[in-house]
């Protein structure tokens, strides 16, 4: 990372910039590597017992999973639009886009909780074998990321609505980038659990 900032200092003419707070990219890179390890671990376990995993997979609600994906994608879009609006200094528009983005996050969380209840009522818990262990743990850790992201975005939403002067967008850029990471993780996690057959 130190090398990147030296590059930028040496070539101020390039328009290239690292969005947001530099260090947050370190956090995200590490987070994505850990999820990659989990994805690999899941696939390794799956290939040792594909039959059982297939049976378990079929108990999942694919439609709900797909709709959750569409919801999270839309939420990410809203946050991206919000950032663009803020850059164009259209604050009220930005606040509205951000509000919808946050609603998307909440909606995803609620949907996830309902999905968990359905699975548990059907008798599947994290202890019901390897597939469900991975299902609950991976989507659970992802859900924690969704909640953290939603919380951070909400802080910005409250701040922007309060009418106080907004000095610099670096913090929000990082929040947005984190949110897009949450989205991107689900883009892989959803087919991995629900669609790989």
């Amino acid at each position: 990372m130190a090398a990147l900032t030296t590059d930028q200092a040496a070539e101020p003419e390039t328009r290239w910039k690292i969005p947001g707070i530099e260090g947050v990219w370190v956090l995200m890179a590490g987070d994505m590597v850990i999820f990659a390890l989990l994805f690999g671990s899941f696939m390794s376990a799956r290939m040792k017992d594909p039959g059982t995993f297939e049976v378990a997979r079929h108990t999942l609600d694919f439609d709900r999973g797909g709709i959750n994906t569409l919801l999270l994608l839309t939420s990410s879009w809203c946050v991206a639009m919000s950032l663009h609006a803020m850059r164009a200094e259209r604050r009220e528009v930005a606040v509205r886009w951000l509000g919808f983005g946050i609603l998307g996050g909440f909606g995803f969380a609620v949907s996830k909780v309902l999905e968990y209840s359905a699975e548990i009522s059907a008798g599947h818990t994290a202890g019901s074998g390897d597939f469900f262990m991975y299902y609950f743990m991976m989507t659970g850790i992802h859900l924690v990321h969704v909640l953290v992201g939603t919380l951070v975005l909400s802080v910005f939403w409250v701040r922007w609505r309060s009418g106080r002067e907004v000095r610099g967008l670096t913090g929000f850029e990082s929040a947005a980038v984190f949110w897009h990471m949450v989205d991107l993780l689900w883009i892989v996690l959803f087919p991995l659990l629900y669609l790989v057959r």
Partner: protein
Amino acid sequence: MGIAPEIRTPQQDATLDTTDKPTRIRGDYLTLRWSLMGCLVYVGFGLGGFAGLAGFMPPPAEHLNAAGIAGYFHDRGISLSIGMVMLAFGGPFYYLWSAVLSRIISRIEGPMGVLSTVELLGGLLTAWITVMSAIIWLTASMRPESRSPETIQTLYDLGWIFFDVTFAFTSLQLLGLGFAILRDKRQAPLIPHWVAWLGFLTAATNVALVLMPFFETGPFAWQGLISFWAVFGLFFLIIGVVTPYAWKALRRLEAEDLTAAG
């Protein structure tokens, strides 16, 4: 600055603060640098004992039954015991390292700052945890002829619970360090801000250890990809990253202090 006692007059003692200040400053920073290198003893004895001699890399699995883990202890024999003695010896050197970071943090925050204390206590308790687990595993390895497999398993489990479920000590240390680093508003911070975020990543990954008691197989068991490899990989990474920056920070601070002392 010799060791041979110089005969000082009371008048000379009275001027100790002003005349000998650069000497004292240099002495302080020399001590700080040596303490920082305590991490080498921690890592050296720690890994040498835990991974090398005891063979805990990866450790015997959580799903082993009593006979299984007793078998491991019997097979490993005296190497395991020696390894655990090494781990117990090396543990406290972690707090030497943490004490140095604490002093650096205190140069960032004001007189009422608490982060230096939080970081120091986190370091001390992490060192303590290392020692606790080592002596529990050492106990399990002694008197193999009269320890039942169930006793060995119970002690082995206890050691891991001490090692893993107490992660919050380390996480709080890293949060204290991280927040202090981010508060540093120098043009070139004493420690780069991205290091704070690496610490936050490490602290957050530790939280996965809450799952350890509940899964005997898979990535979250104490031998698993996340609970063992990711968690401890990041732990040693943060030590490796912070130490060189802390060393440089000490050089800068020493130069500042010597300049100020005139």
